């Protein structure tokens, strides 16, 4: 389901850390992928495979060693408000209330104050935090903090969302709730998403397509289309026999990589 002109396109991207020579680590090697307009694409792979590094490069927060990442056909040169980001860690500003945290991302917006207020209210509702507008981050649970972070990344309407294991630090039950929340929000307000996770079920539930990466140095091992009907929901989708088949398929791919990496984790660095 590739769109005519992809929203995001990575072309032969390399990321090399460290000085040339002995200390050099190839984190991402000749990686190409694309994310279509309003498509939800996940990046999965064994830990340390460079999936978060790729996301940071797409955000413009990490320089690209070689190759290009294009947004709407233009190469990115640095971070910008066209790409919203949600991190795994809690990145809320603890000195601001929930509503002021969400409003913070509208700093550069030229909308009149009244419209900003309306947007903030609407997004507080969207992530199910009605009644918590005046609360401070230290009064919220981990799941609620990530709801605020998602609202803050959506409210200024970036052209696409980059999400780096946003639910990775949450407990299992909260994670399920958040997956359902993101699924519903995305199905109601389609937007382009590149989503990094190590949770295969999460990737299948949410995505249109999944890229499975190799162990380091990270390359694309396989592209997997998730042809499950939408709208999806947690219980029905996960009991679909195609879900189980996809899960086995993706897990097998990741396990191959993890095993290839396990005997000698530094073999590829030599």
């Amino acid at each position, binding site marked *: 389901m590739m769109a005519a002109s992809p929203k995001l396109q990575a072309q032969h991207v390399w990321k090399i850390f460290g000085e040339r020579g002995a200390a050099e680590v190839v984190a991402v090697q000749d990686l190409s992928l694309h994310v279509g307009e309003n498509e939800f694409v996940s990046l999965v792979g064994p830990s340390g495979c460079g999936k978060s590094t790729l996301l940071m490069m797409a955000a413009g*927060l990490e320089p690209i060693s070689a190759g290009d990442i294009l947004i709407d056909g233009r190469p990115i040169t640095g971070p910008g408000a066209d790409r919203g980001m949600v991190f795994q*860690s809690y990145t809320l500003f603890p000195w601001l209330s929930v509503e002021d945290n969400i409003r913070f991302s509208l700093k550069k917006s030229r909308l009149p104050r009244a419209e900003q207020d309306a947007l903030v209210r609407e997004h507080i509702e969207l992530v199910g935090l009605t009644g918590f507008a005046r609360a401070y981050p230290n009064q919220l649970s981990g799941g609620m903090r990530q709801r605020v972070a998602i609202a803050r990344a959506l409210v200024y309407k970036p052209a696409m969302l980059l999400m780096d294991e946003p639910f990775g630090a949450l407990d299992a039950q909260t994670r399920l709730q958040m997956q359902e929340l993101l699924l519903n929000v995305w199905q109601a307000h389609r937007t382009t998403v590149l989503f990094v996770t190590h949770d295969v079920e999460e990737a299948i539930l949410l995505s249109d397509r999944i890229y499975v990466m190799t162990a380091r140095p990270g390359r694309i091992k396989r592209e997997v289309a998730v042809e499950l009907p939408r709208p999806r929901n947690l219980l029905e989708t996960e009991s679909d026999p195609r879900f189980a088949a996809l899960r086995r398929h993706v897990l097998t791919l990741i396990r191959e990589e993890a095993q290839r990496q396990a005997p000698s984790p530094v073999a590829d660095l030599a």
Partner: protein
Amino acid sequence: MRLLDLRTDIPRRWYIGAGVGFVAIFLLAWATATWQQWVSPIFLPAPNAVFAELQDQAASGVLWQDLWASTYRIMVGWVISTVLALPIGVLMGNFRFFEGLLEPFIDLVRYMPAVAFVPLTILWLGVGDTQKFAILFIGVFFQQVLLIMDNVKTVPRDMIQVSYTFGLSRGEILRSVILPAAMPGIWDTFRITVGWAWTYLVVAELVAANVGLGYRIMRAQRFLETDQIILGILIIGLLGLLTDYLFKWSYRRLFPWALQSR
């Protein structure tokens, strides 16, 4: 209820009672040792002798002159140090260039004893208050810069990076993310360093002073007036405690969001 469980809260009356009780026992031991004449009054005067000295100095006005002179020196010396340490520490915490530029020099200077600068500062600045400010500055500034640098560095990287994705410039992030995030830590640095300024007071008033709490102690030493020495030490301790509480109290007022975090 067990009072000695690891890292467990205890009833408030026990917590406060223990602190008050300890001071009471300390005073009682002092009183007993002196009233029973276990130690000579030359070495350790009795509490009532020190209290009598306090009444004398308060009545003659010496106490108020000393209090004002010393508080003024502490405040000016500490404020000069802080006004310079804040921007420099913020620069060093944010930009590796400034850290590389200044840290080796500051590390060198901060181990130099402030007391050794007394003759030099008199030579350079004369015998007025400026020389006192300079000693307090030397004692506080170099440590303060490094502490503020560390306060700035504790701001999480992800918090800065997420701000870039909202389209903010470096200057805007510095102003509206890094500074507010680092402020509680910096406030604590203020509290600690103003305490250091009090401990440097005697050094600052070591020579070429004719008023001040530190001067009073140095003069009393010459005439072995131990009651004056003890009184001076107690007053400096109490004033240090007072400024400490002022900063702790204002911290809770200014940064309620930083309390009970996590």
